[in-house]
């Protein structure tokens, strides 16, 4: 059954259990076509199982999954032909060269050698294609895995911890390549437990923990939900003077020993706070409204759910 294609991937109340271990519990999320969705969560959160259910490599116990309007249970082969996956630890036939591995992928994905070469060039691994993969560094393996995953120009690309084990420079290069792919309109789902990686890439974040989705949405929307009040950091030449901040209008909470973290009812209050400080003879050295990072958001959501439960 073909659905309207606003969502590339849709999970509805998906449950998956391995023996007594619940891997996924009532998981709901959608990945719109052309979006970058980041599955964020600690190890064991259920991210890899989600990827495996998406391609039909695993079958869920209950719930409904739709990928490109198809069901992984009945149309798995077609889905797998249209989806590319970069697994968490990319594995290859180490005795074969990079090119032979790519050729194998191109054949089984019914692509051609020109596409394989183009993919290798795109990910900067074309110079090493005649070497046996057994001699590749982790970064080279990741680049080859990325090339292998896009050799058939997939409509959906799933990256499971694509920067695991990479040095910062290689990790940055991989993230830039993912951004480039996203810019071309591919639907991308990236699993990571590294918050800074999702920053600036994610159109939406799905926060997972213990097999459940804790929160999902665009980072800005999530920030509004979980961090409703604006936050500003204020510091002064004489920090002991900052005790007065709690008396100011619009200041909801003041925390911190050195520089103070103020929760305020509106960002419009910030100029008034500065003026009030100056009036009282206090010389501010830092006034910095907080733009919540994913890390701030992640820990705020975790705190929220801990308190909620």
């Amino acid at each position, binding site marked *: 059954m073909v659905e309207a294609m606003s969502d590339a991937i849709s999970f509805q109340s998906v449950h998956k259990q*391995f*023996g007594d271990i619940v891997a996924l519990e009532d998981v709901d999320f959608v990945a719109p076509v052309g979006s970058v969705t980041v599955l964020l969560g600690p190890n064991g959160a259920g991210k890899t199982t989600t990827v*495996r259910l998406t*391609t*039909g*490599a*695993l*079958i869920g116990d209950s719930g409904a999954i739709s990928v490109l309007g198809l069901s992984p249970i009945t149309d798995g*082969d*077609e889905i*797998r*032909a249209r*989806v590319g*996956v970069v*697994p968490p*630890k*990319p*594995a*290859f*036939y*180490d*005795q*074969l060269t990079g090119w*032979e591995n790519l050729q*194998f*992928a191109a*054949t*089984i*994905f*019914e692509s051609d050698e020109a596409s394989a070469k183009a993919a290798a060039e795109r990910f900067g691994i074309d110079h090493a294609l005649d070497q*046996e993969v057994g001699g590749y560094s982790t970064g080279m393996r990741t680049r080859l895995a990325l090339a*292998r995953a896009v050799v058939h120009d997939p409509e959906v690309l799933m990256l499971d911890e694509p920067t695991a084990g990479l040095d910062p420079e290689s990790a940055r290069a991989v993230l830039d390549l993912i951004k480039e792919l996203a810019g071309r309109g591919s639907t991308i789902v990236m699993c990571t437990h590294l918050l800074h990686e999702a920053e600036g890439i994610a159109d939406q974040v799905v926060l997972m923990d213990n097999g459940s989705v804790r929160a999902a949405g665009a980072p800005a929307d999530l920030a509004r939900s979980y961090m409703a009040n604006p936050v500003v950091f204020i510091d002064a030449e004489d920090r002991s003077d900052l005790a007065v901040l709690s008396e100011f209008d619009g200041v909801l909470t003041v925390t911190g020993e050195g520089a103070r973290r103020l929760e305020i009812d509106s960002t419009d209050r910030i100029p008034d706070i500065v003026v009030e400080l100056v009036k009282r003879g206090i010389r501010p050295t830092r006034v910095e409204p907080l733009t919540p990072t994913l890390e701030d958001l992640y820990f705020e959501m975790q705190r929220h759910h801990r308190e909620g439960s």
Partner: protein
Amino acid sequence: MRWSMVRAVVKADLYRLVKTRDYWIPLLILGGIFFVGMPVILLGGIGLVEQNNVVTQIGSIVGSLPDAIQNNLQGETPTARASYAFAVYLLAPIAIIVPLTVSSAVGANSIVGERERGTGEFLAHSPLTVREIYLGKLIASLIPGYVAGVVGFGLYSLVVNIIVGPKVGGWFFPTVGWMLLVLWVVPPFIAIALSLILRLSARVRSAASAHQASSLVTLPVIVASYGVASGLLYSPVLSASIAGLIAWIIAFALLASSTGSIRRERLLGVSGDL
């Protein structure tokens, strides 16, 4: 079933095997021992025997063989007739042992090896059907064994003809029985063993377990095939044809029912029955 996909799996597996020296050199040595070393020592040894009591013993061994065989033996002297008997009848099972050992060594590692390397994850997410993966793995395991069998058979023929031929009036090998054995009876026995070994390879947790378990499977098949091979050479054409046909039927039945042993979750290593 897309044969181009099966071919891709076969090609990748065989290419990998060819590049893995640690894997095929021991198998090459095994084939060399069975197809060349052992026949040279045994047949050459018989030819060198000159002591009267040993010649008498060999003559009595040949005399104890069934009449059907004795009537077919060529050569005028007891040692010539003994050499012929060894070459044609007593060494027959090596035609089965070597290919079976080679194929089972390759097959045992084929599926569990994908899981251990992590390449099973790639296959599980690929558009290959499990039937294509299974058939690819089967053919890739069968080919090395069969090639070993045919090449070894060729070498064995050379050895036998060079050592025994001059004593029995010229090159006489391969006989009809051996041709039937190698071309018609050995392949289904390899397939039977592989159908069982691939099931094991899909289920066990490690390649080491697969190799141990495969030897348990291979041994009865070797024993059965040893008996069949030896028996067939006594009255070759009809019995070998029938035995081969039965073996093929069993092989196809087992192969058809084995397809389901490969499941994507087993390639990932998350199946509950692993």
